[in-house]
């Protein structure tokens, strides 16, 4: 009976993103505490000491606006902060200051492809600003509070600026979820609002999952928490869809609850904590946040062209394939490198090939942004032009590029590679061809006697010359030089 029923998942996603700022959201403590001692980046404000008061960091507002704009949200002119009350040792004031329902940005959307490959809009309810909490360390093997002899709290993270992005329940599968957050991450990173480094915990996911049964029954909404990677998000959603579908298939009832994703075990489990309300009052220590239209426009002017727009421009105006355009626009530094290279005169298709192969390889090997490479896009453009002009072979150009990566100028790198200005041609090439022919008299004889109808022997000689020329000779010149030498004297 159950195999006749079908189940439609309804999924909403909440994404926490750490905004990129020098200092925390309500105090001047440094936001970069990587590898520093626990509780070394704290002050009365982010420790919630009696009498301390928050002061809103305007850089956080700016980054929030940028992220919102990258997600097609409308910036709200007047917003408010609230105190969201709940008790936990990592929350110094036992309330979190959050914009909650009166967010800095609202009503956004992203377009993804659904599972059938058709365009689909995922609506974004809002992006609101809030403070992060500290980190708990428990003396248990599984790191959970339950049963811990001792627990420690590190408040370095307390007060880091977060943007919480809440989608509408428009997502229908784990694949859509991953595509949505991948696109979201790329756009936010483009905007410069966050580094969205998943490994550093700068992006965390919760999912609200429910399933609708084909017989009309609905499961209740289940909030799944604690996903820190795309993979975890994908698996947690899949697990939850399956779990809920099975319950409904057996005629059971899905409880409305918060479940915890256990990444190691690959399961979600009930939190055993009774669902409790989180209470809100207006944060009396912060006046309403009013964002002037001038400021909004000033921020908007700094928002770069978004990746999808870039990609379609590359296809339409530069003749790149969609695949290549997608690779080139995956991160802004690479796209900018490519565009600078084209602007400096390189052919877009050739430049595209260079950037998505050699430049990306260098970026990955050196773990730097493209703009930090020793080879500037203008130099790469010059290199590409020389190949195009026949002054350098592609093989040699790669060697030149590698030498430039080590810090040499274009001229120095060309010299080091042994390439002669203008490549090997004229008498040098003539000498090499003659020497090669002289070393292979039997092959020459076979060609002259007309036994090389398919041209294989000529190609063989050509290959020998090219190898000897160490990439400095142009294939067409070699071919014509061999042809010249083979002519009966």
């Amino acid at each position, binding site marked *: 009976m159950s195999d006749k029923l079908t189940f439609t998942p309804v999924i909403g996603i909440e994404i926490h993103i750490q905004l990129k700022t020098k200092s925390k959201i309500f105090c001047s403590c440094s936001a970069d505490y990587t590898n520093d001692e626990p509780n070394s980046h704290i002050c009365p404000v982010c420790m919630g000491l*009696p*009498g*301390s*008061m928050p002061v809103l960091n305007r850089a956080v507002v700016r980054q929030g606006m940028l992220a919102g704009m990258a997600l097609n949200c409308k910036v709200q002119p007047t917003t408010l902060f609230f105190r969201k*009350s709940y*008790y936990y040792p990592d929350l110094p004031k036992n*309330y979190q200051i959050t914009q909650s329902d009166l967010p800095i940005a609202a009503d956004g959307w992203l377009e993804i492809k659904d599972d059938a490959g058709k365009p689909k809009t995922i609506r974004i309810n809002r992006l609101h600003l809030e403070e992060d909490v500290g980190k708990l360390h428990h003396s248990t093997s599984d790191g959970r509070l339950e049963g811990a002899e001792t627990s420690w709290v590190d408040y370095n993270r307390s007060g880091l600026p977060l943007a919480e992005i809440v989608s509408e329940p428009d997502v229908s599968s784990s694949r859509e979820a991953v595509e949505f957050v991948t696109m979201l991450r790329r756009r936010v990173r483009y905007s410069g609002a966050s580094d969205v480094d998943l490994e550093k915990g700068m992006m965390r996911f919760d999912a609200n999952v429910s399933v609708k049964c084909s017989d009309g029954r609905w499961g209740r909404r289940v909030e799944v928490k604690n996903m820190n990677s795309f993979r975890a998000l994908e698996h947690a959603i899949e697990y939850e869809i399956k779990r809920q579908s099975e319950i409904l298939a057996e005629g059971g009832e899905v409880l409305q609850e918060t479940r915890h994703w256990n990444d190691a075990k690959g399961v979600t489990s009930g939190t055993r904590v009774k669902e409790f309300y989180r209470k809100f*009052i207006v944060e*009396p*220590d912060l006046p309403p946040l009013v964002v002037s239209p001038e400021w909004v426009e000033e921020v908007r002017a700094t928002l770069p062209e978004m990746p999808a727009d870039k990609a379609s421009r590359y296809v339409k105006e530069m003749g790149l394939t969609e695949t290549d355009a997608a690779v080139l626009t995956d991160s802004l530094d690479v796209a900018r490198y490519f565009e600078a290279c084209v602007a400096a005169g390189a052919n877009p298709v050739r430049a595209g090939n260079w950037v998505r192969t050699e430049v990306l390889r260098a970026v990955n090997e050196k773990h730097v942004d493209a703009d930090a490479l020793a080879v500037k896009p203008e130099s790469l453009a010059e290199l590409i032009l020389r190949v195009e002009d026949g002054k350098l072979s592609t093989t040699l150009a790669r060697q030149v590029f590698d030498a430039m990566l080590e810090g040499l100028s274009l001229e120095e790198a060309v010299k080091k590679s042994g390439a002669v200005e203008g490549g090997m041609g004229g008498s040098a090439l003539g000498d090499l061809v003659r020497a090669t022919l002289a070393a292979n008299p039997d092959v020459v004889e076979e060609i002259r006697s007309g036994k090389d109808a398919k041209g294989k022997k000529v190609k063989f000689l050509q290959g020998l010359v090219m190898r000897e020329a160490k990439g400095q000779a142009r294939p067409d010149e070699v071919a014509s030089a061999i042809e010249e030498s083979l002519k009966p004297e």
Partner: protein
Amino acid sequence: MRLYELSARDIASGVRGKKFSATEVFDECLSRAVACDGKLAALITTTVEAGRAAAGRIDGRVSRGEDPGPLAGVPVILKDNMCTHGIRTTAASRVLGDWAPPYSATVWELLSSAGAVLLGKANMDEFAMGNTTSTSAFGPTANPWDVSRVPGGSSGGSAAAVAAGYTPVALGSDTGGSIRQPASYCGIYGLKPTYGLVSRYGLIAYGSSLDQIGPFARTVGDAALAMQILARHDPRDSTSVPGKKIDFTCREGALKKKRVALVREFRGFTLDAPIADAMKRVTRLFEEAGAEVVEVSLPTVARYAVACYYAIAASEAHTNLARYDGVRYGRAAPGAAGLKEMYETVRSEGFGVEVKSRIIAGTCLTEPVRSEEYYVAATRVRTLIAEEFRRAFESADCILQPVTPSLPEKIGEMDEDATKGYESDLYTLPVNMAGLPGFTFWTGRAENFGEKTGLPVGLQLVGPRWSDGELLNVGFALEKILGAPKIASL
């Protein structure tokens, strides 16, 4: 005249002019405090070493020809809810234990850099919740005019100390009358400034949207002197309003053509006879001095302000007091078996009854099912109250009204009926709801009023936002007519 009897102005000019040293002043004030505090219990902490060291530094600067500032060598007392770096700050609660803050409140930074010297931290109702200074974990403070009676609260320690001559100036905080009511009960001057005029940074919060720090003094001039130093924008307090330049020089002739209003709705309410008499006497004084006495109507204020005040104050308080959980500072529960037990132990042992009742009230009033009906409704009424005051001040420059309907009760009497205390707040709470300045001034002592004969009688001036300087000008004129209060003899 003894040095402790001098005004802050006279002390500062004497120290600057080398008539006497800051150390001499400090020692005299200290011995006055030590002599009286056995009876009054106005201080939680007496800062003998820190104060004497600071006085010594002031004297050093004077002898080097430097100017230590307008409060050179003036001993002051802070209510014990203002953070003082390295000096125990308790908010009169067991929950904070011996917590010594790692930073100072802005008001203390301002006073000390103007040359003031800390003599002590004053007793108060626990977390400023109360109007008797009897809810303190350190026991009640007594009224210097009758030690069997309350000094008012919650800043009762500060008020009693100034009235008894410990220091010429002390700071209090006023969430719903906590400066004005004890100033009245102790027979001195007390200003609750416009919300946003004085920084709250470092003030242990009760109701953050209502709390405001202000001075107690025995002369209007000293209150104005303190305000000259305190009224400053503080970037660390986002509710502190920038760009407000208020003149606190106490100008003469403030009463002429001044439109002084009486509130129509307050007319029918019962007052102790000496307070009713004072209202009549001061109204007549205004008229004689060329002021125009008018009437304004505040129906919403009279009807709803008290209920809405408690909803807002409790809602904010329960969040402000959520941080006392034993995790980071103050009282801990090292033997607790788990997190929940730790919270329960720290909070049930750390807080007193009054504080617990307000935390519970705030928790209930902000529950999602009730929030709209209580907390949110109260914030809406608050807007109406502010608007009603704004309209009233279109036809008046200030309002003359009582501070409380009655003179101070005996210690312990108020505790039996909590709601009686609440009702007595009608003349003070609405002022905080609207963020207005309110100034308590001494009018004289009660005559022919049974066992309350001789107790001080104060009244209150309320003005529009930022009229703080103008209120003090009016107070200055009244001080000239009524005389300044004497130090209570103990």
